[in-house]
């Protein structure tokens, strides 16, 4: 600058008001820039936090949503029963269909329940309780004559443990349901639908 305008520096420095004006402007600009930078950084980090929270919340909502959807699936409902009372035979059919991960039924299940980006394990189990006397006579029984467990998942059953260990987040929810064996419909059994999801 001094090379290009050899006389300018001296004149500028001699003008006290100009120097102070520049200082003031510089100070004001610094305050604005620092303030604005902090604000932008704060907005940016807040947005990142909101996005992460939104994803986490969605994930938290997924397990109960999926469990509720399974409980209310029309093709699992026992004949002539209220919604939420499932048929043992229908559950067995569905578990068999969905055990083949390459099947169209599996793809449809993933599509219908929005499971494209998360791993899942669904377990449906009946609860059976029986108490007997020391002589073997039954004094109390609830549910079916034996316990039944069905399950299907997004991965091979053998690799579920490895998937869960490697997952960033795992959530599980259990919804109580009633299950009916169509061969003895009067014996409404207690049971549950357990949904485990991970990502």
């Amino acid at each position, binding site marked *: 600058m001094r090379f290009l305008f050899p006389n300018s520096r001296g004149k500028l420095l001699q003008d006290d008001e100009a120097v102070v004006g520049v200082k*003031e402007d510089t100070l004001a600009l610094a305050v604005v820039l620092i303030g604005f930078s902090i604000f932008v950084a704060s907005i940016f980090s807040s947005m990142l936090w909101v996005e992460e929270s939104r994803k986490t919340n969605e994930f938290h909502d997924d397990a109960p949503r999926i469990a509720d959807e399974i409980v209310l699936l029309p093709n699992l409902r026992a004949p002539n029963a209220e919604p939420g009372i499932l048929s043992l035979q229908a559950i067995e059919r569905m578990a068999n269909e969905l055990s083949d991960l390459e099947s169209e039924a599996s793809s449809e299940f993933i599509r219908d329940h929005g499971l494209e980006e998360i791993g899942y394990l669904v377990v449906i189990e009946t609860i059976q309780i029986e108490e007997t006397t020391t002589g073997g006579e039954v004094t109390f029984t*609830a549910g079916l004559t034996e316990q039944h467990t069905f399950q299907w998942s997004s991965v091979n059953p053998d690799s579920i443990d490895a998937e869960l260990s490697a997952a960033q987040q795992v959530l599980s929810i259990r919804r109580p349901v009633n299950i009916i064996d169509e061969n003895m419909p009067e014996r409404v*059994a207690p049971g*549950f639908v357990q949904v485990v999801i991970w990502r």
Partner: protein
Amino acid sequence: MSKATVISRDIQGFEAIFDAILFLTILSIGAVLLQTTLVSSLQETEADSITETSVQSRASMEVFLRTWVYFDADGDGEDFIRGDTSSAVNEAIHQLRTGEISQQEFEQFTTALNSVLRSIVPPGHGYRFKASLDDSSVTMTLGLSADESLPTSRNLHFANGDWVVPALGAGDSGITLKFELVIWIR
């Protein structure tokens, strides 16, 4: 010699800095408002969690009352109680009131029902179930005993149901059997 110009004496320049600080203050208020909005969204998540527990309470109650049970105190196949839990509880309370079953048999039935309810209520939850007839002092309590107070430090979720039982012979109006299930996360 003229007095040197400094920032503190330059009112116009000071106004510029004051404007900048004012601008910074407005940005800070904006940031605080933004954070407030974000905290509100967290409170909604908490509300969702409470709703979820309420759903568990209602579902557990419904499943328990629909469950089929069979009870025969001595296992001899006579004088048994059979049917869905709501009917069986009603019958057991009625039989205790009329003396058809003893207090010991009633407690045996209560213990057995408790094992059913314990397996229905999701793990990690505490519970208390009460069933009572409106015209008698007989009450069946499962889970946390009636002598113990409910944990007030937890969110309690109630599911209630009244069931009118005309078969008990108290006239056309029948007798009301009241059910109440409270659950909480331990």
